[in-house]
């Protein structure tokens, strides 16, 4: 049975942790579990917390004199709570922490600690961890702790070789004036390899890292928030470690970094298979997405992307394998898992007969949002996706791009830890696309994990996302764009002839492939290779129509891995560029060349034409 925890952040009972395994009434004269001490502004029985049969943590005010507030909003009726919600009763502040899973230690280990500033610990009055900086791995700086709350508020404490906190500690570690500090409370030490470790020294009130009480020494990272007594500290200037980097694991491949994120794995898919009768759709998908990470799920039509998304969303059962979201199994506890999830399926899902506002409000309501919090979230999404001017418009009369924005916004209202966007920009104009990308980027920066399925590879590059390429039901490659290009693609020279490409010995080194009228030579020095090859063509040079330097790109990697068009050695498929699958539903215009050249080709709405322009032009 999972169990929500209430942590008393301040007030007479600060430092206590209350389990919601059973209903708990809190107040001055409540039962022992919920007694919050002599807070004069608390009623005798102030409010009631419970965990309903479906795992929802629910709060009700019991007619208190001074009211109960969630994230600053007055509780007017029974209200569903979310992880990270902050509850104020009298002078007491409580924070709801996510349920610990069965058998897990309540004070979880570093691997499952939520990131500071993420939804799980998203406490409104605390600054979120700074967005990850694009700095080289291994950079070190003068580590320091900023005091964000407590008697020493505003001070900066240098970490140097280490520091101890406590009333008996020397120097700034004494945090003078904090009555909840133990004599020897906690310490930060530096390991031989320079990493910083936080350790509780048997304090009375515990030491917290990003909202979680630590049971054992924990490695620290940039942006981590540490609570000792009444004091809240934020760490900065720490070198980015490899462990801090975002990673995805696909089909037995090692973890590869793409963008900075926290340690916390939000989505974990292990050996997921799906079979319809004799037809396998997924043949063993392994994927991890961490908090703050965006993974672009790429693959041709029919590769299994939507099936995978449906399994994650609990719409389809996997034939075998396991999917968890924040360690909650999507099949065993689907409702609880879906609380962590926001999904915008590939097909639009909006009520055309209702207004934009009503659509947003409804999906906010069924996500447990109420009252002013609901209104503020609706306003927030409206602002982010430029829907505010359309609020009173019926969804039926929105343009395609506006509908797409509304559709995506409905998945984001409840600030899910995991966001799945299945081709969210199909049919969207440039502005809509940019707004959706900006919003996704921002949500990831706030600590959400995002699985972004698309056919538009430039979007993956724009998002700075890691990539997982799904083909024929399995992940064939994963990693950052740079790594995939390095691993699966190389520069090349491509020669196009009038008629069949000659079978002449070209006298150059490198992988040579012939396809109809085209010869492609993979080489590290395409310019020199081009000059050498043209010189050896002899009479065939008269039929030469073009020589092109092909730069490696995500497009070419993708095609290499999914179309096998330029597979090395052996014969090539008897197809030309114009026969490649067109991008579905896109309007006529110039697009990146699907063959992977560093060029643009013209899509007339039905097929690729022969119009080619260089990207530079």
């Amino acid at each position: 049975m999972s169990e929500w925890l209430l942590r008393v952040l301040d007030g007479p009972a600060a430092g206590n942790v209350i389990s919601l395994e059973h209903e708990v009434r809190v107040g001055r004269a409540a039962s022992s579990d919920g007694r919050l001490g002599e807070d004069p502004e608390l009623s005798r029985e102030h409010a009631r917390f419970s965990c309903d049969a479906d795992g929802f943590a629910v709060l009700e005010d019991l007619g208190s004199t001074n009211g109960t507030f969630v994230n600053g909003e007055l509780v007017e009726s029974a209200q569903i709570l979310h992880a990270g919600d902050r509850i104020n009763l009298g002078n007491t502040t409580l924070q709801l922490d996510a349920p610990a899973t069965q058998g897990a230690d309540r004070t979880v280990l570093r691997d499952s600690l939520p990131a500071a500033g993420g939804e799980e610990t998203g406490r409104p009055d605390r600054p979120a961890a700074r967005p990850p900086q694009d700095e080289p791995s291994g950079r070190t700086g003068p580590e320091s702790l900023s005091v964000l709350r407590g008697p020493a508020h505003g001070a900066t404490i240098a970490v140097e070789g280490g520091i101890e906190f406590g009333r008996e500690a020397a120097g700034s570690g004494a945090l003078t004036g904090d009555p909840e500090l133990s004599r020897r409370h906690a310490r930060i030490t530096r390991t031989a390899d320079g990493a910083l470790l936080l350790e509780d020294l048997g304090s009375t009130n515990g030491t917290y890292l990003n909202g979680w009480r630590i049971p054992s020494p924990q490695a620290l990272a940039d942006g981590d928030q540490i609570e000792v007594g009444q004091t809240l500290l934020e760490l900065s200037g720490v070198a980015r470690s490899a462990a801090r980097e975002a990673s995805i694991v696909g089909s037995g491949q090692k973890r590869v970094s793409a963008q900075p994120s926290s340690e916390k794995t939000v989505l974990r898919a292990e050996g997921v298979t799906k079979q319809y009768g004799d037809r396998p759709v997924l043949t063993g998908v392994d994927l991890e997405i961490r908090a703050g990470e965006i993974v672009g799920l790429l693959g041709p039509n029919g590769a299994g992307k939507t099936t995978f998304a449906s399994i994650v969303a609990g719409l389809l059962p996997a034939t075998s394998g396991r999917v968890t979201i924040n360690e909650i199994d999507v099949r065993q506890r689907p409702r609880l898992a879906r609380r962590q999830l926001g999904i915008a399926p590939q097909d639009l899902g909006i009520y055309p007969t209702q207004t934009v506002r009503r659509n947003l409000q409804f999906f906010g309501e069924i996500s447990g949002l109420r009252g002013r919090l609901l209104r503020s979230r609706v306003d927030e999404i409206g602002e982010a996706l430029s829907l505010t001017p359309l609020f009173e418009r019926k969804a039926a009369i929105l343009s395609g791009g506006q509908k797409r924005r509304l559709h995506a916004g409905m998945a984001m209202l409840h600030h899910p830890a995991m966001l799945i966007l299945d081709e969210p920009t199909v049919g969207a104009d440039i502005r809509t696309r940019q707004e959706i990308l900006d919003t996704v980027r921002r949500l990831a920066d706030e600590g959400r994990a995002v699985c972004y399925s698309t056919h538009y590879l430039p979007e993956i590059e724009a998002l700075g996302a890691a990539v997982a390429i799904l083909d024929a039901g399995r992940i064939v490659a994963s990693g950052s764009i740079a790594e995939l290009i390095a691993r699966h693609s190389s520069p090349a020279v491509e020669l196009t002839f009038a008629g069949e490409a000659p079978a002449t010995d070209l006298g150059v080194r490198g992988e040579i492939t012939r396809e109809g009228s085209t010869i492609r030579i993979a080489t590290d020095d395409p310019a020199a290779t081009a000059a050498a090859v043209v010189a050896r063509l002899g009479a065939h040079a008269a039929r030469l129509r073009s020589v092109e330097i092909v730069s490696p790109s995500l497009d070419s990697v993708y095609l290499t891995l999914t179309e096998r068009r330029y597979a090395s050695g052996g014969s090539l498929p008897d197809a030309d560029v114009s026969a490649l699958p067109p991008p579905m539903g896109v309007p006529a215009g110039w697009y990146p060349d699907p063959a992977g050249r560093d060029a643009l080709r013209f899509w007339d709405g039905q097929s690729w034409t022969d119009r080619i322009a260089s990207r530079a032009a």
Partner: protein
Amino acid sequence: MAAGPVAPIARQNARLLLGNPGPLVLFFFTPLLTMAVMRPTFQRVLVGQGFTNANGAEQVIPGFITFFVFFWVVFIGRNFFAEHGWGTWQRLQTSFASPADIVIGKIFPAFCIVLLQVTLLFAIGAVLFDLDSAGPVASLLIVGVALAACVVAFTIALVGLVRLSVQLDALGNLLVMVFAALGGALVPVALLPAWGRAISPAVPSYWANKAARSVILEGQGLSAVWGPAGVLALFALAFAFLAMMTFRVSQAKVTAG
């Protein structure tokens, strides 16, 4: 009680059902118009049956209520198909709501609207057509509740059975007519042919009309209502069982035609 997704889904579905005025006009004004047109005819029929003081309202009001109430089956059923067509059904499944929340949230407002229609039509009809009941008409409220439950359960069962909207339309409308014809909604059961009289108890409308006749024409009270209401409740349970066997939240519904 914990705040859950059922209430928002129910409110949303009420908005969807009440947001389209066409069917509401059909389901409220058409029965009243039909009652007005048919009342003199039924007066003669009832007088012929020995109810010399009858003015026809005693038959047309319950009869046409039980006739038109089943038209909701197709209308409510189409609402499920609309959700599939809009893509919102899939979204609901990915929300915090469980399949039971979704179904309960959808049928509860439907039940309330059907019950409201039955009650309002009866009240308005009684005033407009000068209904002079021999028994306590308030006792018929039990029948109205059972009838509304029957309509809603039958709707879910039918939606579970079909995959195409045209199938819903065809089967739904056919059964509405069968229920009306055999159940004494269009003509008193006594005027049906022998085979019709023999099988008429097999349709729910029969029991609703039987209860109405017992109270309004024969002057009986609550004791005469429990039996037919119980049978209607059994019909509702049977339809609900069928619905549980056939209705799958994950089954795709296609609007065609």
